[in-house]
C-alpha cells in the first residue's frame, strides 16, 4: 500500500501535481458532490434516489412550476430580498461613510454595534424578534421577515463596503472641498459616484444572503412563506423529489448572483 502511494505520488509530481493539488481537488469534489447529486436527481424520471438513473424527465420541474406554493415562495423571496437590499444599501452606506470618513470618538463602538448581529446565531435573533413582535402586537408577515433580514445582512454589507472605502483615495474628497463643495454636494458629486459600484456589489451580497436566509425567517414568518421555508415544509417529513428541482433552481439563482458580482469578488481578494 505504501509503495503504491509513493509511486503514485512520484508519478503525479513528475507532471507538476503535488499532494496539495490532489487534496484541493478532493475538497472541491466534497463541496460540489451533494449539489451535483441534487441537480442530477432533479432530472430523474423516477422518484427513487438510485444509480444509474433510469430515465431523464422534467416532471419534477413541471410539478414545481404548477405549484402555486412554490411560485408564491419565489415571489415572496424576491420581494423580501429586493426590499432588504434597498434598505440595507441606504442605511449601511450612510453608516459606513460616517464611520470611515468622519473619524469621531466612539466610531469603534458604532462599528461594533453594526457587527454585533453577526456574532449571534440566527436562532437567538429569530426568537428575540418573535418575542418582540409579540410584545408590540405586530402581526407576523413578510414585513417582519424583512426586519429580520435587514438586521442579519447589515453587518456583512458594512464589512464588504468598508473594506472598499478604506482603499478609496481621500484626496479626491479634499479636492472637492478645496474647490468649494459643501459636504452634501461633495457626497453627491464625488463620493457617491466613486463608491457606487462597491455599493451595488455589496447589495448583491445582501440579496444572496436574504434569498438564502432560513434560521431567522423561521420565527418571523406569517402566512406567506419564502422559498427556503417552502423547501423546509416539503423536506422535513420525507424525501420529496420535487425538492431536488427547487434546490436546483436555488443553486442556479445564487450562481447568477455570484457570476454577476464576480468582478467585485476578484477585486476584493486582490
Amino acid at each position, binding site marked *: 500500500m505504501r509503495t503504491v502511494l509513493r509511486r503514485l505520488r512520484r508519478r503525479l509530481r513528475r507532471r507538476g501535481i503535488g499532494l*496539495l493539488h490532489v487534496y484541493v481537488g478532493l475538497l472541491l469534489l466534497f463541496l460540489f458532490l451533494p449539489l451535483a447529486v*441534487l441537480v442530477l436527481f432533479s432530472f430523474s424520471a423516477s422518484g427513487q434516489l438510485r444509480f444509474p438513473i433510469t430515465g431523464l424527465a422534467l416532471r419534477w420541474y413541471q410539478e414545481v412550476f404548477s405549484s402555486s406554493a412554490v411560485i408564491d415562495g419565489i415571489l415572496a423571496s424576491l420581494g423580501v430580498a429586493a426590499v432588504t437590499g434597498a434598505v440595507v444599501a441606504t442605511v449601511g452606506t450612510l453608516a459606513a461613510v460616517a464611520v470611515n470618513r*468622519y473619524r469621531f470618538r466612539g466610531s469603534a463602538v458604532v462599528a461594533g454595534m453594526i457587527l454585533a448581529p453577526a456574532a449571534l446565531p440566527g436562532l437567538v435573533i429569530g426568537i428575540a424578534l418573535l418575542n418582540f413582535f409579540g410584545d408590540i402586537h405586530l402581526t407576523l408577515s413578510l414585513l417582519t421577515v424583512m426586519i429580520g433580514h435587514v438586521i442579519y445582512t447589515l453587518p456583512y454589507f458594512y464589512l464588504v463596503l468598508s473594506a472598499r472605502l478604506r482603499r478609496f483615495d481621500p484626496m479626491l474628497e479634499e479636492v472637492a472641498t478645496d474647490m468649494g463643495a459643501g459636504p452634501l454636494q461633495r457626497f453627491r458629486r464625488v463620493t457617491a459616484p466613486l463608491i457606487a459600484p462597491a455599493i451595488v456589489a455589496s447589495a448583491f451580497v445582501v440579496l444572496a444572503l436574504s434569498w438564502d436566509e432560513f434560521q431567522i425567517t423561521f420565527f418571523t414568518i406569517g402566512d406567506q412563506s419564502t422559498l427556503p421555508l417552502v423547501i423546509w415544509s416539503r423536506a422535513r417529513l420525507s424525501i420529496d423529489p420535487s425538492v431536488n428541482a427547487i434546490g436546483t433552481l436555488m*443553486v442556479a439563482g445564487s*450562481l447568477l448572483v455570484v457570476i454577476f458580482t464576480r468582478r467585485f469578488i476578484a477585486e476584493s481578494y486582490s
Partner: protein
Amino acid sequence: MGIGQGVLTATRRQQTPAPARRRWALLLLLPLGVAISLGFVVPLALLFVKSFETSLGYGQVSGHLTFSSYVTALTSPLYRTVAVNAFEIGGIGTVLTLVLSFPLAYFIRFRLRRGQHTVLLLIMISLFAGYIVKIYAWATILGTYGVINTALQDIGLIRHPLSVLLFSKIAVLIVVTYLSIPVSTLILVGAMQNVDRSLLENARDLGAGGLRAVTSVLVPLSMTGIVASLAYGFVVISGDYITPQLVGGTTGQMIGVPISDQFLSVGDQPLGSALSFLMLAVFVIVYLVLTRLERFKGV
C-alpha cells in the same frame, strides 16, 4: 498612504472643525441607530427580561421575576445532554473545518495565479447554494432510501438500509463541517492577503521545509483569520437548530432544538430565553479564550 495622506488629513481637520464632523457623522448614523436599536438591542433586552419571568403554561407568562428558568435549565439532565452535544459538535466541527479549509486557502492565496478567481467563485457558489438545500442534499445522500444505501444494496453489500448514516451525530458533524468550509476558507484567504509571499520564500531559503514554513510563518501571521474562523464557526455550528432536526436522529440533537421548540406554539418561553442566554455565555467564554490564543502568536 503615508506622509501625503497624513498631511491631507491634517488639513481637512483644520478645514472642518471636529463638532461639525461629529454632527454630520451622527446625522448619517441616525437611520442605522434606529434600525439596530429597534431590530436588535431592544428585542434582545426584552428576551433577557423574559428569561427571568415564569411560564404559566399555554404560552402565558407571569411578570414576576425569578431565576427559576435558569435553575431548570442548569439542573435538567435533558438540557445538559443536548447542550454538551451542541458544544462538542461545535468544537469538533469548527476545528475540522479549520484544518480542512486552511490548505485550500493557502493553495488559493499562494499557489494559484490565474485560476485564483475561478476557485474563489466556486467557493462562493457553494456558499450561496442554499443552507436548507445543502442540508437536504446530504439527507438524500445519507438517508434510509438515499444514494449510499441504495447503492450498497444494489451491489449486494448490505441487505437492509444502514440507519447510522443518517440520523446520527456523525451525520450532523459531516453536514455542519460541509456548511462551514466555504465561509472559513473565505475568511482565511482574506487574512492571508496581508501575508507577503516573500516571507514564505525566505523561510524556505533559510532551510525550512514547505510544511515548516507554513506552520512557523504563515500560521502566526494569519492568526486573526484563524481565530475569526474558529469563533464564527463555533457560534454558527453550536447554535444550529435545523441540521439536527433534519439529519440528527436521537443521538445528534443539539441545544438549539429545545430552545426553538419553546418559542413554537405553547412552549415555555422564559425557559427558552434562559437557555439562549446560557448558550451566549458559553460563546463569550470561548471568544475570550480564543482572543487570548491570538495574543500568543509569537510562540
